[in-house]
């Protein structure tokens, strides 16, 4: 397998409003949305990205697709630096790499009909008009909106949330991209419709060799579609491994908490258990050392002093924790 995406020390900081005190001191606080991540995605691989709300997942997706400029680090797509893309090469990149936005409601032009919205990538790449309708109907069938004629001439506000979410997915797929970033693509779908979409995602991977990054807090999606899963916490990747390992033997305390908190469709579960307590982490002034330490039940002295590196805990499975990574522990 060859690398399609390779990022090193990728960083995105957003400026934030300053208090008077900060202004007087000449401080420029930033939101460290993505704070130095390394990431490789092989051609044909489906990778899951999970993590706490606000940890920077959407920002990573936008960086990979050059929808926002990085504050630092390097990023290659198919061997070429993404920062150097412009003109024709950028246009080609835009055709090959597609994004499914997290919020379907503000990612479709409200004045467009559904037919026009889904046609967008085809129009941009000059697919002849005669071919378009067939391609659109095919994409709509893939996302289980097979009764396309029912929606074709409607506007986004006339669709339900889950219908619109599938329209956005159809638009991303209609141009047959080679790389897809899908940000919470099934968050509004009920289980039965979602099952169909997850089956589709697996088919895209197995039959068409699509390379994809699926951003989701839905571990069902990740378990079912992605062979590898990354876990983010506060701008950093804290765990990276085969999905089955990450879910059944999570190495990082944050991942452990995440997996324990998944609500299950049974009524015998406790209604109150919550493994990680405390407020959410703060991306403006993250704690020193390990960023989880003020919420981690296992934190010890070293966690405040040293940033844990992402090190192997088992073959192909890495975690950034002083406790669970033997290599980290040995360095102590």
């Amino acid at each position, binding site marked *: 397998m060859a690398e399609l995406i390779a990022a090193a020390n990728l960083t995105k900081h957003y400026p*934030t409003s300053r208090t008077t005190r900060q202004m007087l001191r000449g401080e420029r606080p930033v939101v460290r949305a993505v704070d130095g991540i390394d990431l490789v995605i092989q051609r044909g691989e489906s990778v899951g990205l999970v*993590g706490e709300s606000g940890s920077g997942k959407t920002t990573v997706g936008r960086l990979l697709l050059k929808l926002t400029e990085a504050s630092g680090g390097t990023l290659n797509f198919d061997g070429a630096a993404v920062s150097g893309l412009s003109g024709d090469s950028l246009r080609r990149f835009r055709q090959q790499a597609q994004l499914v936005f997290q919020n379907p409601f503000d990612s479709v032009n409200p004045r467009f009909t559904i037919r026009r919205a889904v046609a967008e990538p085809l129009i941009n790449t000059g697919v002849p008009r005669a071919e378009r309708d067939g391609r659109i109907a095919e994409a709509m069938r893939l996302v289980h909106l097979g009764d396309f004629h029912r929606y074709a001439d409607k506007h986004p506000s006339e669709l339900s949330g*889950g219908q619109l979410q599938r329209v956005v997915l159809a638009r991303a797929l209609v141009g047959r991209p080679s790389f897809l970033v899908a*940000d919470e693509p099934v968050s509004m779908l*009920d289980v*039965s419709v979602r099952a*169909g979409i*997850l089956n589709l995602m697996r088919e895209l991977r197995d039959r068409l060799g699509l390379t994809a990054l699926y951003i989701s807090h839905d571990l069902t999606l990740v378990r079912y579609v992605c062979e590898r899963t990354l876990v983010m916490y506060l701008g950093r990747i804290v765990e990276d491994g085969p999905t089955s390992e990450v879910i059944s033997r999570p190495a990082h305390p944050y991942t452990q908490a995440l997996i324990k*908190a998944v609500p299950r469709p049974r009524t015998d579960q406790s209604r109150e258990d*919550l493994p990680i307590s405390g407020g959410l982490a703060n991306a403006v002034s993250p704690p020193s050392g390990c960023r989880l330490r003020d919420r981690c039940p296992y934190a010890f002295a070293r966690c405040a002093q040293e940033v844990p590196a992402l090190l192997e805990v088992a073959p192909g499975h890495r975690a950034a924790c002083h406790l669970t990574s033997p290599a980290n522990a040995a360095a102590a």
Partner: protein
Amino acid sequence: MSATLKRSTNATLEVEGLRVSFGGMEAVRGIDLSVERGETHCLVGESGCGKSASALAIMGLLPGGARRSVRRLGFAGDEIGKLSERRMARLRGDRIGMIFQDPMTSLNPAYTIGSQMTEVLRRHRGLARDKAAERAVAMLDRVGVTAPGMRLGQFPHQLSGGLRQRVMIAMALLCEPTLLIADEPTTALDVTVQAQTLRLLAELQRELGLAVLLITHDLGVVARVAHRVSVMYAGEIVEQATTEALFAAPTHPYTRGLLDAIPVPGKVRRGDKLGSIPGIVPRIPAGFVGCAFRDRCAFAEPVCASNIPPQFASPDHAYRCRMAPDWWRATA
């Protein structure tokens, strides 16, 4: 007519015979439901079955072109089905809190979070600006937004999906409503934050007797928080029961299909296809008679094309299907 349970007469919300149509299409076809003080009533069902349309209809917020009719719409003992728009507007955001599926219906992109939150308190509660800001910060803190002071100065597009959703939740709760109508309020939240948010709602229910009508496709969330559940299909409630009764003995074939489609951890192997219910929610023309599930139901008989009266599996478990309450035991 829908499958519904007897109601006590002092419910916070009482809906009887609610219908909504868009042009010739009937989206909601006569539903009955009630939410008691301190109760969470969950509305579940396939994408496009009419959940959001029902919620918008209850709040008097259907878009132009939609038609609503309702036999009874009771809120805290008052009939609100015929209130003027001005008096409804006074209830909304005050005694009735709302969280919309489309975040941009709740949040104006042109104003900061702070000015939108303080505006609500100034309008409904007449609070001075600084008092209002104080309360906004406290509420953001309660829903797990860190650095709430900083967030007040941000615009909606500067927030991650989950942060935006928490801001909407905070805004809906600002005036300590009697009733909260929440349409998929946790789709953008990771499971740990989701658990925290659901716990906050439970606290408010205990403290204030808050009644919650919760639309969600996540049956894990339903099992965790609902007291009662209504399952919608093609604009009707086809099953309504206490949560325990529903999960113990789901009876309508659609409900059974919905629960079967949930992948059980450990049971789905890679390579397995996830179960989905074949077919799509049909388009219902005016004057449609019979069970709307019949073209997807494995048990359909000619009689299913005629009017199907509701039946009771137990006093707290109603459903609408021709089959006997325990039919599924024979097929298990």
